[in-house]
């Protein structure tokens, strides 16, 4: 049966930690407490409060970082997961 070789390349522990921490960091930065701090600035831009720009900006940033992480993970996981199982 299929047993993955133990020598298969795995992403480095640091990369795996970054991949696991990204959503945690985003969750923390979008927590009510963080949003409350941002809301203290009453500045508006284009009829939107700073808070909205903060949320959407952070969201987009997280997506960009996520894309970079996904690319790095894919490169490091090709030997272990890139091959498709035979139907």
């Amino acid at each position, binding site marked *: *049966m299929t047993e*993955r070789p*133990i020598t298969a390349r795995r992403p480095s522990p640091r990369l795996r930690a970054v991949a696991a921490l990204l959503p945690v960091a985003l969750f923390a930065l979008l927590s009510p407490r963080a949003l*409350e701090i941002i809301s203290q600035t009453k500045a508006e831009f284009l009829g939107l409060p700073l808070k909205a720009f903060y949320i959407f900006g952070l969201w987009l940033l997280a997506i960009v970082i996520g894309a970079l992480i996904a690319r790095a993970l894919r490169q490091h996981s090709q030997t272990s997961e890139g091959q498709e199982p035979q139907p």
Partner: protein
Amino acid sequence: MTEFALAIALSYAALLFLIAFLSDRERARHWLASPFVYTLSISVYCTSWTFYGAVGSATRSGLEYLTIYLGPTLVFLGFWTVLRKLLHITRRDNLTTVADFISARYGKSDGVAALVTIICVAATAPYIALQIRAMATSFAVISADVSNIAYAVEEIDILAAFWIAAGLAIFTILFGTRSVDVNERHFGVVAAIAVEGVVKLIALISVGLLAVFSLQGGAEGMTVSISDSLALNEEMAGARWIGLTLLAGMAIITLPRQFQVTFVENQRASDLYTASWLFPLYLLLMSVFILPIAAVGQTLLPSGADPDMYVLTLPMTLGYDTIAVMAFIGGLSSGTAMVIVSCIALSTMISNHLVLPLVLRTSMDRFGRGGDFERLLLTVRRLAIAFILAVGFVYLWAGASTRALASIGLIAFAGVAQLVPALIVGLYWEGATKRGAILGLVLGFLTWLFCLLLPEFLGGLGWWQRVEAQGLLGFGVLRPHALFGIESSDPLLHALAWSMIFNTVGLVVGSLSARAQPYEERQATLFVNAMHGVERTQPSAPRTVSVDRLFDLAQRVMGADRAYRTFRSYAAQTGSRSDFPTVNDAFIGHLERRFAASVGAASARAMMLEATGGERVTLDELVEIADETARLMRHSTEVERKSVEIEEVARRLRAANDQLRVMDREKDEFLSQVSHELRTPMTSIKSFSDILINTGDLTSEERARFTGIIHSESIRLTELLDEIVDLSALARPDSDLALEPIDPEAAIDLAIDSSLGLMRVAGVRLLQDRARGGVLVEAHVGRLSQVIINILSNALKYGRAAEPQIHVATRLSAGIFTVIISDNGPGIPAEERERIFGKFVRGVDAGGETGAGLGLAISQRIVERFGGTLSVLGSNGPGAKFEVTLPIMQNS
């Protein structure tokens, strides 16, 4: 307008059919196997609740609607942790639904699968009702006269809703139930869903851009402030923000339709890497235009207008009919996509986990080999689809029609969230058992039912209002909105918190209360360690089943044709000559997984147990799996340890190599010194013998002198060679030196005696200061006196002074016998003191005296062989002072 709207809807349905039809053909498959199609199919998450309801939510609660998108964003950005593992196991074991997955984790239990199916149906039915309602409402809105826009549809046309439900049922049956095998995935459906994903995004963005245009004072010549219209600066309820984010994050995993598109319909595992960021981007785009639409709707539309329909009524009011039609199609896309995929997933669950176990209990043998069984499954699935839509319709009809879209959607989310503890905890904790899973699921489901679904459904009834006020059966602690007396202004959070607490506690307590069955433990290990290389192991118990019996069973389950193809391809893979493979455990496992793709893991296992006659997991097999896991863990630590060892060995080898290089260089130097030393006398011998041979007229005096030189040079040469032989003999630690206990004073006497003649000739005065204690040292008399003679002769050679004298002193101290020989000559300069023990080293002031320069080197080696030392003592000013120390024997 009604006919127009109907025509649009039917044309759109026809287009989807065409897409599905074209996509099911082989040629389209490679195009469909794209991460973009995969990501767009996951967008089935965005239903009409999102399409219409998000604007309503933003109007009522500001930014809160974002939580529904942020939750899934977090889960997908963190795909490496959970989603990847779920996908890997689903693909590995051919799992068909979320119920199949959870049941497979807990020993392929029928009970768990049935329970999860019931929870999913209960949670999805109101959700489907919601879609029907949104579609019916949008239909009413788009059908209304432009001059008299239906801003708020109080009562939906129940007949229209019925036809929508019926239409969806037919549509889904035609779409989704053409094949029972999950391996033949729903390519057509996925393609259609992906197209719907594009359509609804474009539609919403179009309405959004129209709203932004209006914001800037476009058509109406006015400026709208989003902040002012939506009260975005108001304080948010922190607990609700967190609760909804987590809820949406859980729902994106366990919603039956999401599980279907993300894991079951996935064609390439690597597509998840792209979806991990592309799907969050899709959600971002879907949510960014909600704010302007809500703000403009709030400002421009009449106060009685339903915010849930702004997406449609806004472009109609502004007179953009094309955009209004696009919005209508977008809403239709959102609703149909959700209904189709949910129905496929739920009908598979109902047929595989509720109906099939009953059929299996009666008997499989009633089904023929011509595909009767397959036909039965398809019929059951079609009926199940009709049933699900009927339940949705009844839910809509029976009430609950006045609530906002968002709240119904959240109730459904909270329902499927009950699957999360069993699913996620089971993925990381091997100790979670079937009993725990069932206990947790039942407790969570009942809490959800009592605190959230029933109040929603029965809220209008008098007796239920009494329950809400006084508690169930009069128990005050059992009030749906204040369980155990804890009041909450937010029924959703209240129900979510209690249900998740009961669920998780039930899972843990149930798991700890009883030992798991061997088969459960096996599945637990295979799930928890799925990413650590623990794959399927071959059961070791012998099976007694003929290939004919298996083929018979396979024909019934899969149909004759597919069964034959499965057997033949396996036979070819394993190198069997006939079309039928040899029956062994590997083949039985393979066949079971093929069955699982059609009927689910639990039923497939039941069938195989029936066919092969016996419990499949033995204790031996469990031990084997445990061993395998332990072996893999050991292996990796061993590899680590070995690499450290190898590094250490390499380091030592490098050091040894360096030492060898130094020794090699020393040897080369020694050889070149030796040849140089040998050459000098040889040259002299050669030149004088040349003269003797070639010169005829030599006087006899000259002849005698030359012969004398040749003779003395030969002697010198011989001495030199002897010394070299001596030195190399001493260099070998195994060389024989016959040590014995001797009196060192005797050896010194011997040396002095043999040097006295020379001293007298040189006029040297000998002073002695001896400590004759009669001690013994382990040494060799001849060799020791050789050392002393050597030092004395050096003193004679170099110790030139006006009144030369040599002083020989011996001392005894702390087990050491010391001889010090000093002269009153010029002494040895400090920089020379180390060098003089080297080979072929002569003092700078030899004064014409010759010698090979090996004497001190040999002497030092000799003394070292005796376990002692030979060194030159430092003294400023004249006089060289040599010291020889030797250890005194203990018993002397």
